[in-house]
């Protein structure tokens, strides 16, 4: 057959038709369908043997128990532990999403690095650990050689009391610098209030599960306050049987948060007036004679009027409260109806086991000293201190302290220099560290007094409510070292990166989970092999100390961090008490009321340690309730409504230039004996209220991290589209206030404060107090990856922070703002 065009076409058509009769088209159809079922770009998780490893979560000071499900050496899920007494099975969303922090290379540092690009650009090059350590040791030794060891400073955001924190503080001290600075949190303020009124330094311990009336002054019980796995579990217990509901929860807050909404009663006091409300309740309780006269008469100081040395008549707490905090007056201050104040006070005093708790939001920001003292007074007059369901006062956990440091001359001289943040000075006599003052000191001086800054588990550039002051200060510090495992904003400013392991890769401890009512030492263990070339910051400190040499080296006689932990645990053993087994069947809070608990469930130190390493905990059940006679370590030996320590401190400071000056300089607006007692002061503000007629209040939500820990992307699913939409975050605003400014749902507005402005969208919410703009904390990252970078704005950027009277902590709840419609 001739091959011409016609035949060729015939051939093609015939061929095409012929193929239809073969199985080929069917086979192909099937094959490509199978291909769609196995697309090579859809990951197939490798199978393997399931292994379950137990540890604790150290992403927040709550320290909940976690169990990590692994497939071979790969972690695939984190779950709550049921054999850990803090949290019976549940954990918070952040802990649940923890693996996304572990396995995300773009938010983690994978090896030591040094900066090559301009500051803040995040351009680093890889270096070896040896080079990195030599670099840092050289720098610190250099400072010591120049006899200015105090130019070394550290910012530490690790949970209070942790052994790692102790190591960091020890390093800074051994080098010869007093400038160890902590990220302030509510517990600091709480401890200060306790120190002044009770004289004790025990941690915050609320017996929530045994209480029957919980009056929370702004504590975000459902927003992540304390150990979320424990508090939210308690919430579930309180609501166990609706027919026989026993417990009442009252929330004082200016916004209908989850806690406020879900509480039995919501008291919407103006932000910053909580102290007045607490004192107003005291007023009613005292007036109605509902207070615990045994406690007040026998065990307290300064309740009634008294004569001080020299025969001077002093007004006591009772007189002050009765005079100045009548329901009518308090109603005027707080905006809460006086009827509500009266009924609330009677409910509280009438309950069997009431407790008043404090700590704003999650408690990861500082509180107000006088407010916490006022709340403490409420517990005191109702005799709720050291009673089941109330506030429990404990000794600190009996961990061995580390050996005394034998300071060399350079160190001793350096330590005598004043702290840059003036914490502990006569002006701020009760504060341990004031990071806001450190930033101010650096910004004030032409040259930064800090030469080398070490940053541990903290991202102050993003998390400090300071209107960007710390970020500004960082720019002036010549050398910054970040130990963060994460590429956060502060690490971006660093010159040297010494990345820590993540919490799943390292040994760490939680000494007393935040707010827990009994002593518990939790040990977090490496459940995963480190996936990158990172090192436990504590081990890095040990190496660094060795390289610096001299007294620094001798202050750290350990080879590995585990040895330090084991050495500290010896104190637990020698206390002769405590338990290391817990099977989850009988909750500790139930057994606590039994008084003296069982003896130790271990025979030798080695046995105890072995059990701690496998179970992750040591806890103690013995508790002596109502031991009011020998409980208080104040100068009077009693609970002090009238704080002798404040009086002493103020008088000491007044020696410089008189009492009026002293009060003013310490930030106190109160007069006379009031300042020695819990009292209410209107939050000082230098802002022009006519330019900035509204207030901005940041708030925390449980499914968005606002600490140094990045937000696991899974949590973005749990955010509402009235919180974040695209890259824009929302401000909550009362419809009434919005109408005044002609702002509708979803409208774009600019919020302007004296510190700057941010652009947000409006979410009209009836639960927002009129006149106050509520902005969520945790958005507005300029670091990390596409899951959080550039999403929303950070209210911290515009916070106009004042100073809390006496404590000096930042006041972040009083930012004057105005809104401009875009």
């Amino acid at each position: 057959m001739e091959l011409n065009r016609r035949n060729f076409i015939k051939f093609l058509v015939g061929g095409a038709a012929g193929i239809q009769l073969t199985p080929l088209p069917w086979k192909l159809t099937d094959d490509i369908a199978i291909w769609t079922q196995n697309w090579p770009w859809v990951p197939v998780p490798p199978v393997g043997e399931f292994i379950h490893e137990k540890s604790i979560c150290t992403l927040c000071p709550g320290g909940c128990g976690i169990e990590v499900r692994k497939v071979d050496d790969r972690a695939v899920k984190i779950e709550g532990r049921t054999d850990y007494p803090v949290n019976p099975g549940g954990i918070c969303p952040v802990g649940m999403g923890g693996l996304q922090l572990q396995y995300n290379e773009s938010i983690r540092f994978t090896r030591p690095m040094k900066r090559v690009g301009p500051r803040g650009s995040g351009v680093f090059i890889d270096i070896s650990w040896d080079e990195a350590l030599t670099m840092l040791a050289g720098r610190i030794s250099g400072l010591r050689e120049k006899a200015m060891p105090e130019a070394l400073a550290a910012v530490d955001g690790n949970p209070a009391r942790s052994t790692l924190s102790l190591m960091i503080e020890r390093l800074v001290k051994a080098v010869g610098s007093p400038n160890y600075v902590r990220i302030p949190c509510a517990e600091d303020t709480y401890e200060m209030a306790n120190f002044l009124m009770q004289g004790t330094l025990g941690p915050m311990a609320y017996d929530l599960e045994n209480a029957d009336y919980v009056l929370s002054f702004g504590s975000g019980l459902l927003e992540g306050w304390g150990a979320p796995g424990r508090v939210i579990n308690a919430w579930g217990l309180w609501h166990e049987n609706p027919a026989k509901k026993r417990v009442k929860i009252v929330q004082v807050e200016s916004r209908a948060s989850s806690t406020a909404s879900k509480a039995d009663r919501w008291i919407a006091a103006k932000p910053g007036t909580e102290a007045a409300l607490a004192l107003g309740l005291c007023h009613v309780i005292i007036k109605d004679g509902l207070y615990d006269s045994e406690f007040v008469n026998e065990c307290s100081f300064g309740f009634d009027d008294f004569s001080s040395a020299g025969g001077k008549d002093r007004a006591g707490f009772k007189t002050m409260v009765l005079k100045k905090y009548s329901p009518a007056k308090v109603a005027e201050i707080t905006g809460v109806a006086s009827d509500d104040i009266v009924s609330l006070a009677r409910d509280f005093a009438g309950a069997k086991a009431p407790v008043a708790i404090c700590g704003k939001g999650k408690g990861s920001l500082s509180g107000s000293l006088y407010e916490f003292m006022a709340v403490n007074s409420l517990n005191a007059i109702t005799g709720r201190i050291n009673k089941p369901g109330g506030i429990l006062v404990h000794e600190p956990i009996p961990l061995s302290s580390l050996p005394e440091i034998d300071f060399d001359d350079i160190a001793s001289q350096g330590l005598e220099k004043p702290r840059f943040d003036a914490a502990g000075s006569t002006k701020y006599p009760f504060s341990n560290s004031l990071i806001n003052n450190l930033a101010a000191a650096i910004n004030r001086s032409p040259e930064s007094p800090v030469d080398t800054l070490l940053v541990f588990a903290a991202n102050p550039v993003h998390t400090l409510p300071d209107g960007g002051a710390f970020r500004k200060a960082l720019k002036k510090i010549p050398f910054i070292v970040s130990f963060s495992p994460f590429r956060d904003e502060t690490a971006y400013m660093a010159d040297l990166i010494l990345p820590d392991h993540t919490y799943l890769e390292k040994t760490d401890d939680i000494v007393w989970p935040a707010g827990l009512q009994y002593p518990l030492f939790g040990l977090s263990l490496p459940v995963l092999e480190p996936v990158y070339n990172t090192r436990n910051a504590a081990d890095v400190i040990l190496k660094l100390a060795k390289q610096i040499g001299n007294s620094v080296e001798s202050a750290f006689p350990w080879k590995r961090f585990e040895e330090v932990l084991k050495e500290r645990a010896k104190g637990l053993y020698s206390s002769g008490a405590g338990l290391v087994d817990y099977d989850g069947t009988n909750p500790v809070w139930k057994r606590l009321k039994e008084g003296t608990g069982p003896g130790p469930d271990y025979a030798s130190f080695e046995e105890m340690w072995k059990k701690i390493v496998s179970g992750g905990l040591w806890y103690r059940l013995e508790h002596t309730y109502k031991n009011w006679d020998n409980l208080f370590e104040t100068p009077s030996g009693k609970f002090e409504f009238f704080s002798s320590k404040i009086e002493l401190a103020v008088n000491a400071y007044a020696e410089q230039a008189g009492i009026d000056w002293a009060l003013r300089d310490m930030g106190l607006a109160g007069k006379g004996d009031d300042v020695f007692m819990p009292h209410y002061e209107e939050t000082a503000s230098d802002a022009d209220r006519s330019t900035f007629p509204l207030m901005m209040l940041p708030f925390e939500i449980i499914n968005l991290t606002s600490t140094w820990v990045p937000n696991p992307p899974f949590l973005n699913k749990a955010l509402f589209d009235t919180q974040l939409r695209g890259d824009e975050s929302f401000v909550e605003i009362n419809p009434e206030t919005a109408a005044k400014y002609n702002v509708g749902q979803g409208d774009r507005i600019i919020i302007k404060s004296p510190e700057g402005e941010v652009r947000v969208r409006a979410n009209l919410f009836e639960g927002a107090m009129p006149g106050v703009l509520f902005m969520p904390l945790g958005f507005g990252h300029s670091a990390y990856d596409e899951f959080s970078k550039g999403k929303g704005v950070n209210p911290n950027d515009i916070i106009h922070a004042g100073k809390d009277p006496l404590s000096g902590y930042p006041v972040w709840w009083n930012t004057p703002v105005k809104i401009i419609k875009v």
Partner: protein
Amino acid sequence: MDSALFPEGVKRCSPKVFLLWTLPWLCLLAWGGLSAFLCLYKGLNQTNMNDYFAFAVWIVFDLAVIALGAGAFFTGFLTYIIGKKELKDILNAAVIIGFICYSGAIAMLGIDIGQPIRGWFIFWHVNVHSMLAEVSFCITCYLGVLAIEYLPLILENRQLDKVKELRLFGHNLHGIMAVFAATGTFLSFFHQGSLGGMYGVMYARPFAFREGFYIWPWTFFLFILSAIAAGPAFTILCTKLAEKITRKKLVPEKAFQTLAKISGWLLALYMVLKITDTVNWIYGVVPRAGLAFMDFYREGPYGVWLVVAEIGIFGIIPAIILLVPKARQHEGWLITGCLLNCTGIVINRFVFTVVSLAVPVMPFDKFVSYLPTWQEWGIAFAVIGYGFLLFSLSYRYLPVFPRERELNPLSE
């Protein structure tokens, strides 16, 4: 140049003019092609569809063209089964329009599903309880029937007709066309109905849910009725449009009048049933779901005006126009009537598709709005472009209108 391909004895424009005429339709096709590529390659994120608007503009278009394409089966039914011989003069046009509508709809569906490559799973793993399975089976089969109906016409092309085998084949096909008309009628009856059934069975969507007869919700029958009421009207419209564009009389007026009258009667009947159904729904399904009629029209742009438009302006009015002989004999009124009729059915399909999904069912759910992306419009409009193109090509090269030569004697 291509005059050798023209049907005998008719006049066609020059290739240049023809090319110019097809240009806009080719552009639409190119736009559609690009959109289709993006949707297939990158996925349906190229659209503005979402989990609230799982069905959107494409499904509205699909349903609309399938309903409007009902002219094909129904005219065939009237011609071959009922014996309305005058409709033979318009039947070819009806078949082509039907073919365009169905092939366009299936192409669009192919892009609309998330896994087109395994779309055939509908047949392989069929769930016989699903109305959509019924739709898929019937429209796929019916497209085959349409192709068979279309084929003899293609074979009548002057050049193909010269091939003896093809001529014979075409002739024989013609002979048994009644069988296919009957098959088409059967298949169409079920898929038009199932399309309505698709919505009617969604008993958890009170806006769409209808009770019914045996396994078929009332929407099953209403969709059939509305399709056969609007299909002929659409055939009339398209043919009239062809007449306007070619400036020729292509079909004897009697065919139009017969179709228009039947369409009018069916539309009137449909309106009676639709109103009955609506009333029944308002007093049945709606209150049982705890809702009131007006609850559906509270939010968004979909107000109660849609009901007034669908039933009143685009339902009762065209029915009256098409039923009154005086009115439908007037060309202007005839076109208006058909246009309103067709618009009414498009609104109906839009309401069932988009409004059904837009109305939140959970009390705390919210209304979300939806606007198609250019990719979605591209694919939707490509069907229009494709339609114009295929119809123009058919008209140019095939003896679509058997009476054209007779009605337009060449002057030379």
